């Protein structure tokens, strides 16, 4: 297991390098630069050109790339053009909201997904199963921004129960600690549902299938023969092997916890990594795009590593193989 971890960590560096290099090229391919996107009322063409020079945007591509790479190698991600502060600081500010939102969404995803799958797998092709299948497929087919719009329409605009944007209410700073927590949870619910529901539907579909597969296996037959209760067979004997593909899917979803969801965060004005990436891409803020991609790429690779390790924990066979 340690060897797997070490091997994967060694491949991390070239992979991240590859991703940021491709990102750099793609960002550069988009026409226009930061200096072109500004709307300052007194921006003359000369001033725009001076600005381009002051950010080094008039330098050859290769030079810009090498400069960025050399600085990044020493841990310096540069300064954001847009926010006028170090990229590391912008990321430091955006990471906690994203961890909170995507973490909550993942919990919803897993919790709801496992519960629905267990309910469905108890009686395959019964009415619970059919209902969750129809609902699950329906939700799985919807893009999360559409779900976000629907949730806002119903719960924020229609019923007025929950806020439609931002992380806090106006004046939340003056509330008590409990008040602030409740305020935060109220703001968290809709975006977390927008992200989590689709995942939960997918998890439920996947897990239901593997549960049914396990049900048909010989160890379940053996357990039944030994007279174990159906509940025990489902929860203990079938669930563990059935969870293996879910763990893989979970590992692939982990990067979202770090890089955030660009669309959902932007719809809800959630100040995380995804919204920062949106703003950065719009403004052609190259250092910020690069910094966010670097963190995102590292998260993808670490996520799949964690999934592999979890897999080894859940499946003894993966551990013993040499």
């Amino acid at each position, binding site marked *: 297991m340690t060897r797997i971890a070490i091997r994967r960590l060694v491949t991390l560096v070239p992979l991240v390098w590859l991703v940021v290099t491709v990102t750099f090229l793609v960002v550069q391919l*988009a026409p226009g630069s930061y200096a*072109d996107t500004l709307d300052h009322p*007194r921006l003359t063409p000369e001033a725009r050109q001076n600005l381009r020079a*002051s950010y080094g945007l008039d330098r050859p591509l290769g030079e810009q790339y090498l400069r960025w790479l050399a600085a990044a190698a020493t841990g310096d991600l540069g300064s954001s053009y847009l926010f006028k502060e170090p990229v590391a600081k912008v990321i430091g500010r955006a990471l906690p909201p994203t961890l909170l939102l995507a973490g909550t969404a993942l919990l919803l995803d897993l919790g709801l997904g496992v519960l629905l799958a267990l309910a469905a797998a108890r009686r395959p092709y019964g009415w619970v199963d059919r209902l969750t299948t129809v609902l699950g497929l329906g939700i799985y087919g919807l893009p999360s921004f559409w779900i976000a719009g629907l949730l806002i329409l119903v719960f924020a605009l229609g019923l*007025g129960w929950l806020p*439609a944007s931002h992380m806090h209410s106006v004046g939340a700073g003056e509330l008590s600690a409990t008040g602030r927590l409740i305020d935060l949870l109220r703001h968290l619910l809709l975006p977390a549902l927008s992200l989590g529901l689709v995942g939960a539907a997918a998890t439920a579909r996947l897990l239901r299938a593997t549960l049914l597969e396990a049900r048909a296996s010989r160890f379940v037959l053996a357990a039944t023969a030994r007279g174990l209760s159906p509940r025990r067979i489902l929860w203990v004997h079938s669930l563990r092997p059935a969870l293996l593909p879910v763990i893989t899917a979970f590992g692939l979803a982990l990067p979202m916890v770090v890089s955030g969801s660009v669309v959902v965060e932007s719809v809800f004005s959630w100040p995380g990594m995804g*919204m920062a990436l949106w703003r950065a891409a719009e403004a*052609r803020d190259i250092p910020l795009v690069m910094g966010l991609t670097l963190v995102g790429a590292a998260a993808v690779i670490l996520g799949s590593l964690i999934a592999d390790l979890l897999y080894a924990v859940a499946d003894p066979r993966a551990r013993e193989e040499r």
Partner: protein
Amino acid sequence: MVIGGLGDVLSWNPYLAEDQTTVEILSLVYPSLAVEQVDYQDHPPSFAPSLATGWEPSADGLELTFFLDPRARWSDGVPVTAEDVAFTFRTQRDPDVAWLGSDAKDAILEVAVVDAHTVRFRFDRAYPYQLMDANEGPIIPAHAWGGIPYPQWRDVDWGERVVSAGPFRKASHRPQQELVLERNDGYWHQGRPYLDRVVWRPMPSRTPLLAQLLTGDIDLVNGLDPADIERVAGGPRLRLVSFPDRGYSQIRWNLRRPHFSDPRVRRALAMAIDRQAIIDVVYLGRARPSVGPVISTMWAFNRSLQAVAFDPAGARRLLAEAGWADSDGDGNLDRDGVELAFELLTNSENDLRQDICLLVEQNLAKVGIVARPRFVEWGTMLALETGGDFDAIVSGWIEPTLIDLGPLWHSSPPGEPTLNSVGYANPEVDRLLEAAAAVATFAEQKPLFDRIQALIVDDQPYTFLAETERLVGINARVRGAVINDASPYFNLDEWYVAREADVR
């Protein structure tokens, strides 16, 4: 009082700011010598005293002396003095600061401290916009910021160093989430501002803005779409404010393209486009026909000019005169085997402009011209435009109150940065522009401006479409607000919020 908008304060140093929202909000925190008034209809804008209680030009017209209000204090108690004004000028001109508006100070040779509350600007020549140029940019605190060497300015966390002398001061700021300004108790204007706190909630898109205005979560949205009017006007607690905002939309024809180099073709294009339909359908009536390069509400507008009338039959005649005919019978005009077809570009973020493109496409199809709308993202469109890599663009300008037609219409030599993206070149216009820049008074400028406008309207390098209105939605509980195109926060220090019982 909660204001919703698309932008946020991106730097607390006004001279490092690169966006409109930052400039507007910081004008509440840092003082100005004078305040430009919105009276440009019949004469150039006048100015009201602010930090300066008055000013006096010298007899030769080369100097302007300002007298500062001795009561003015920074929020840390230090008086605002002439030294602050001189420091501000040094900052504005410093190459390391590289302020985007520094060209406004090109004609100013020196800002001299006469005494603590008197400061003298010296100009290299007499010209009409001296006061406007001297006043451009807010005054910043020399005592707090003067010790930081300019080369280090871009690395400073200015949010930590805000010292205010405006009606408001910074209370808290969570970037992209919430900005709170609070009443500056030391503001020298007795009793002002009335509001204790003003909160800005930046939003990433327009949709939540309207939604939260309707739910009462935000009190003011500056810049609604015409399509939102009905919902805002229908809200019992909402008020709609609208005014001409110096904006005008147009189609910019790339004159380097052979199709558009013939002025007859450009006139025909203008005649084939139903401007009134655009105003009725796209702007829902909230616009007026645009005539030429100076908007019709501006003192400098040539009132003898008329918008090109909608006349498809006349357009067809003009096109035939220019050699365009449907020789292959496919319904589209051609000449020497080439169709009169082009790409009509606009930015995908702007629904109104996209609708205009579609209407224009229909209008032109009726006279046998093929316009192919193409929608690209804003940065891409600007890059294509500045590179000259386009046929035609639907876009818009905001006309500055400082009338300078040079950047848009002078034929600068190739390679030089210019806003004349269409490649317009008329030697007579060039000559008149240079003459207008050289005269000392507005009275001398006006006839030159009139002539320039007449020539440009004749040449039709743009099809001038519509002069737009700014639409502001505001909660009825907000009182005393004068909102105009100088600034959405023009008199924010006089706004107040009515008690619940009084809002009916």
